[in-house]
C-alpha cells in the first residue's frame, strides 16, 4: 500500500510523507500495539485517498472544460465530417433504442400483477405421435378439485373465454370478448377496479364487470353501475363494476367479465366433464413459499382419481408461471403470445446496427488522424503527456456520443408511434422517461463514446511529434488495417440483413401463394356462431341457394383458416395398434363440392346412399399415408364416438397455416354442430352475391355485424408475424446500408483528399477519367465484394435454420445472395461515385501550382 503512495506523483505524496507514515506507525505500534497502529494507518490512507480523489476531481473538471472547448472548436472546423459522424450515430442509436423499447415491452407482459411470482396457469402436457405436445385449456372440474385437494393453493379461478360474444345494450348489439370467471380471479390478478367491490362484484349470478372503455362506448358519460346488458340472447346481466386499463400489458384481454355462477344451468357446468374442454383456463395463486415443482408432482394422483388410466395416457398437469405465458406457444391458447426467437432476432439486429454505427465512428475518426497530426505534435511539444491527449480525444468522442444520444431520444419519441403501428403494438415512451433509464442511456452513450473513441485516441496520442512535423503520412492503408476490417464488417452485416429480408419476404410470398388445395378465391364462408342463425342453418342454406349466383353451399363445423378443430383418436378396425389422432371434419353432403376439393380415390358423400348418413368416412391423403394403407376403400375406422367405412380419399389441402404440416383428417356427415356456411360463388357475380348475402344476413340476424370469412384474408392473418419480420428486417437493412454508406462517403472523401496530388500528376501524364475512377473506386468495391463473400454463406446457414421452423418452406437460391451482394456494391458505388467523379474533374494546375 505504501508503494502505491510512493508511485503516485501527486505533489504532497512523496517520500517525506511515506517516511512520516512509517515513523508514526512505529511509534503507535510501540505505544499501543501493532493492531491499533495498523488501524490508524489504514484510516490515514483512506482519508488521504479520499482527499486525493476530490482534488483530482476538481482538477479534472477544470481540464474537462478545456477538453470540451477544444472539442467544440474541432467540431465546428470539420462540420461535414462531424455531421456525417453524428448522423450515423444518431440513426444507429435510435434504431437500437426503438428495438430495445420493443423488446422491453414484450418482456414486461404480466409483470404488473402484484402477486405475479405466485400466480400460475395449469396446462396439459402430453405426447402426440411421439412428440411432446402441450395445450392450455383445462377441464372445468379441475379448479374445485385443486382447491379442495391441495392446501398449498391459496386461490383458484377459471376463465371461460368467449370470443365475439353478443352484448345487447339498449337494443344495439356489440360483439366483444367475454370471460366467465370465478370471483377469486379478482384476488389473483391485479385488476384496477374503478368502481365496484372486489369481494362481491362477481359473486352473484348474472353480474358483470366491464372495462372503462366499454363503459364509455355503451353509456358515454353516464354511470354504468346497475345498468342491464343482455348477453347471449335473453339473459340479462347487471353491471356491478368497471375496471380500468391495466397498468401494463397482459396476455389476457377482454371487454368484460361475468360471474361463472350465471352459467350454472348450462349442461357444461351442471355436469362438468373431466374429459372435454373448450376455451377454459385455470389459474391458481399459490401460498407464499410453495414450490411449484413439488406441487406439480402431486397433481397426477388427483387426476387419477377422476379419470381412467386409459384416457389419461401420457397426459400430465403442469404449472406455468404467469409471466411465462406470453412467451409460451401452447396449443389452443387464446393468449397474446409472442415468439422468443423473433425477439432475439430483433435484439441481434439492433445490436448489429449499433455496431455498424460504432464502426463508422471509429473509421471516420481514424481517417481524420493525418489531418490532426500537427495538432498532436504541437500539444506534445507544449508538454501534454499521452494520458492527457488520450483524455482529450476520448472527451471529444464521448461528447459526440452524448449529443447523439440526446438527439436519438428526441427522434425515438417522434418515431415511436409509427413504429408501434408497424409492429402492431401499443408501445409508449413513458417507461423510457424515468430518471434511472435516462441515466442508463447516458451511461451507455458515454460507454459507446469511450469504446468507439479508444482506438483513434490511442493512435492519435501515440504519434511522435517529430513525425508529425516532418509530415510523414499515416501509413495505415495496408490491406489488413483495422479500418478495412471494419468497413468489411459493416458491409457484411448489411448484406446479411438484405439476404435475411429477402428470405423472410420470399417465405411469406411462398406461403401466401402456395396452392391451398381448394378454390379459395371462389368461396366465402359465414360464421354463424353466437348469432340467431345458429340452429336455423338449414333454412339459411335454402334461402341462399335460391340466388342464381350461388352455385353451391355447405354447412360445416369448421372451415379452413378458422382455427376451429376437433381432434379424436381413431382405431383402425382389424389392426392391433395404437389409436391415431386425426382431425375431424363435420359437414353436410356438399362440403367437398363447395370447397372444390379433388377426390383421388373413391367417391364423395351422396344422399343416394343411406349408409352415408352415419357410416361413411372420407380421409385425406396424409391420413392414408399415416395409417399406411395402399387401398383404403372399404376399411373401417372407429373413434368411439364416430365409426364408419372409408368411401373416399380427398387430395390434401391446407386446413391451417403452412407453419404446420397438413394433419391427417377424417370427414363425416354431421349436421348437428354447424358453425359455418360456405358458399361457392359464380365468378362473374361476386359483388352481386355479397350484397345479397348481407341483405339476407341482416334480415335474419338484425343488429349482428355481417363479417364474411374470405379465405385468403384468413390465411394471410397466419403470416402476420412474417410480414412484421419482413418490415423490421427491411428497415434495419436499409438503415445498415445507409450508415455504412455514410461512412464510405466520408472515407472516400478522405482518400480523395489525400491522393489529390497523385490524381493531378496522373492527369498531367494522360490518365483517362475512367482509369482514375477505377483507381479510386476499386479498393472500396473490393471490400464490399469481400463482405459479400463472408456474409452470404453465414446468411445462408442461419436463414436455412430459420426456414426449418416451417413445414412448407421455400429455398434460398444462389441468385438471391448474388442479388443482395450486387445491391450492396451498387449502393456503395453510388455513394462513393460523387466523391470520386468530382475528384477526377479537377484541374491539375490548381493542385500542383505549389510544387
Amino acid at each position: 500500500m505504501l508503494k502505491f503512495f510512493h508511485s503516485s506523483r501527486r505533489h504532497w505524496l512523496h517520500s517525506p510523507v511515506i517516511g512520516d507514515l512509517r515513523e508514526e506507525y512505529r511509534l503507535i505500534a510501540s505505544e499501543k500495539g501493532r493492531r491499533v497502529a495498523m488501524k490508524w494507518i489504514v484510516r490515514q490512507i483512506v482519508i488521504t485517498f479520499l482527499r486525493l480523489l476530490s482534488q483530482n476531481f476538481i482538477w479534472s473538471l477544470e481540464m474537462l472544460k478545456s477538453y470540451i472547448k477544444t472539442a467544440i472548436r474541432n467540431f465546428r472546423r470539420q462540420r461535414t465530417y462531424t455531421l456525417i459522424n453524428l448522423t450515423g450515430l444518431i440513426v444507429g442509436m435510435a434504431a437500437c433504442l426503438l428495438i430495445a423499447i420493443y423488446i422491453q415491452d414484450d418482456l414486461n407482459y404480466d409483470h404488473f400483477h402484484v402477486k405475479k411470482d405466485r400466480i400460475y396457469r395449469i396446462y396439459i402436457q402430453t405426447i402426440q405421435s411421439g412428440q411432446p405436445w402441450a395445450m392450455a385449456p383445462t377441464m372445468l372440474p379441475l379448479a374445485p378439485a385443486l382447491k379442495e385437494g391441495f392446501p398449498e393453493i391459496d386461490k383458484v379461478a377459471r376463465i371461460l373465454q368467449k370470443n365475439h360474444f353478443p352484448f345487447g345494450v339498449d337494443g344495439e348489439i356489440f360483439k366483444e370478448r367475454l370471460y366467465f370467471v370465478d370471483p377469486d380471479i379478482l384476488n389473483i390478478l391485479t385488476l384496477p377496479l374503478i368502481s365496484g367491490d372486489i369481494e362481491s362484484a362477481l359473486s352473484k349470478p348474472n353480474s358483470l364487470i366491464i372495462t372503462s372503455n366499454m363503459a364509455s362506448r355503451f353509456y358515454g358519460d353516464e354511470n354504468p353501475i346497475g345498468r342491464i346488458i343482455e348477453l347471449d340472447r335473453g339473459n340479462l346481466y347487471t353491471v356491478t363494476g368497471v375496471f380500468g386499463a391495466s397498468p401494463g400489458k397482459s396476455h389476457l384481454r377482454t371487454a368484460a367479465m361475468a360471474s361463472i355462477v350465471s352459467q350454472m344451468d348450462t349442461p357444461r357446468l351442471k355436469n362438468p366433464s373431466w374429459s372435454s374442454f373448450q376455451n377454459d383456463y385455470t389459474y391458481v395463486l399459490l401460498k407464499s413459499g410453495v414450490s411449484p415443482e413439488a406441487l406439480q408432482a402431486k397433481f397426477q394422483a388427483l387426476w387419477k382419481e377422476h379419470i381412467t388410466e386409459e384416457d389419461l395416457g401420457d397426459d400430465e398437469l403442469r404449472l406455468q408461471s404467469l409471466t411465462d405465458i406470453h412467451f409460451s406457444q401452447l396449443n389452443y391458447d387464446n393468449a397474446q403470445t409472442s415468439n422468443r426467437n423473433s425477439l432475439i432476432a430483433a435484439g441481434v439486429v439492433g445490436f448489429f446496427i449499433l455496431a455498424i454505427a460504432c464502426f463508422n465512428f471509429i473509421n471516420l475518426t481514424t481517417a481524420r488522424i493525418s489531418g490532426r497530426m500537427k495538432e498532436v505534435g504541437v500539444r506534445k511539444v507544449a508538454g501534454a503527456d499521452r494520458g492527457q491527449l488520450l483524455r482529450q480525444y476520448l472527451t471529444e468522442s464521448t461528447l459526440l456520443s452524448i449529443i447523439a444520444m440526446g438527439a436519438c431520444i428526441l427522434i425515438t419519441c417522434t418515431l415511436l408511434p409509427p413504429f408501434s403501428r408497424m409492429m402492431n403494438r401499443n408501445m409508449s415512451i413513458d417507461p423510457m422517461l424515468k430518471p434511472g433509464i435516462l441515466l442508463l442511456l447516458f451511461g451507455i452513450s458515454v460507454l459507446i463514446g469511450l469504446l468507439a473513441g479508444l482506438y483513434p485516441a490511442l493512435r492519435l496520442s501515440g504519434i511522435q511529434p517529430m513525425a508529425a512535423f516532418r509530415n510523414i503520412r499515416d501509413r495505415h492503408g495496408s490491406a489488413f488495417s483495422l479500418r478495412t476490417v471494419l468497413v468489411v464488417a459493416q458491409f457484411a452485416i448489411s448484406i446479411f440483413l438484405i439476404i435475411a429480408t429477402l428470405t423472410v419476404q420470399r417465405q411469406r410470398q411462398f406461403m401466401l401463394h402456395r396452392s391451398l388445395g381448394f378454390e379459395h378465391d371462389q368461396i366465402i364462408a359465414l360464421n354463424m356462431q353466437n348469432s340467431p342463425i345458429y340452429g336455423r342453418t338449414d333454412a339459411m342454406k335454402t334461402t341462399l341457394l335460391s340466388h342464381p349466383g350461388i352455385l353451391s353451399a355447405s354447412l360445416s363445423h369448421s372451415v379452413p383458416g378458422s382455427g376451429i378443430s376437433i381432434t379424436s383418436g381413431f382405431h383402425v378396425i382389424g389392426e392391433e395398434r395404437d389409436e391415431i389422432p386425426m382431425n375431424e371434419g363435420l359437414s353436410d353432403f356438399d362440403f367437398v363440392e363447395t370447397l372444390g376439393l379433388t377426390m383421388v380415390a373413391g367417391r364423395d358423400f351422396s344422399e343416394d346412399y343411406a349408409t352415408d348418413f352415419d357410416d361413411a368416412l372420407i380421409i385425406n391423403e396424409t391420413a392414408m399415408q399415416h395409417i399406411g394403407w395402399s387401398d383404403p376403400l372399404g376399411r373401417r375406422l372407429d373413434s368411439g364416438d364416430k365409426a364408419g367405412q372409408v368411401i373416399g380419399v380427398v387430395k390434401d389441402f391446407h386446413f391451417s397455416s403452412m407453419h404446420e404440416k397438413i394433419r391427417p383428417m377424417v370427414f363425416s356427415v354431421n349436421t348437428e354442430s354447424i358453425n359455418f356456411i360456405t358458399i361457392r360463388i359464380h365468378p362473374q357475380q361476386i359483388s352481386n352475391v355479397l350484397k345479397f348475402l348481407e341483405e339476407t344476413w341482416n334480415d335474419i340476424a338484425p343488429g349482428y355485424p355481417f363479417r364474411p370469412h374470405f379465405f385468403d384474408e384468413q390465411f394471410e392473418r397466419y403470416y402476420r408475424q412474417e410480414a412484421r419480420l419482413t418490415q423490421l428486417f427491411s428497415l434495419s437493412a436499409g438503415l445498415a446500408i445507409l450508415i455504412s454508406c455514410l461512412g464510405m462517403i466520408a472515407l472516400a472523401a478522405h482518400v480523395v483528399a489525400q491522393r489529390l496530388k497523385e490524381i493531378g500528376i496522373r492527369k498531367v501524364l494522360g490518365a483517362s477519367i475512367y482509369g482514375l475512377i477505377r483507381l479510386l473506386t476499386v479498393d472500396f468495391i473490393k471490400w464490399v465484394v469481400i463482405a459479400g463473400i463472408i456474409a452470404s454463406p453465414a446468411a445462408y446457414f442461419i436463414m436455412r435454420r430459420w426456414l426449418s421452423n416451417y413445414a412448407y418452406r421455400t429455398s434460398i437460391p444462389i441468385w438471391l445472395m448474388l442479388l443482395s451482394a450486387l445491391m450492396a456494391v451498387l449502393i456503395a458505388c453510388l455513394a462513393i461515385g460523387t466523391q470520386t467523379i468530382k475528384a477526377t474533374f479537377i484541374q491539375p494546375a490548381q493542385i500542383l501550382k505549389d510544387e
Partner: protein
Amino acid sequence: MQQITSQEETLLLGVLALGDNAYGMTIRRHVSKVTGKDWSIGAIYDPLYRLERRGLVSSFLADPTAERGGRSKRMFRVTDVGKEALKAHKLIRDSLWGSVPDVAWK
C-alpha cells in the same frame, strides 16, 4: 501584509513551537494533541505547501533515517514574512477581543 486563516494560524504556531524539530509527523501530532482532533496528513501538508508558496514557511529535506525506512524528513520553518503575518493576525484578534465589553459575556 498577508491574511491567514485560523487553520493556517494553528499550523504556523505549531511549526514555531516545535522549533528545529518541525516536520510532517511531529506537526501532525502536536497540532492534533493541542486542538484535540485528529488532523489527517493531507490536512497538514496541503496548507503547509500553500503557505510555502506564499512565502510564509520554508522547508528543506533533512537526511534520511533508518526508522523512516530510509526516507528523508521535510523540515518546516516559519519565515520572517510568516512571523509578521502571525503577529498581525494576533493584533487583529486582540483588538477584536478587546472591543467586546465585559457585559457581553454575562
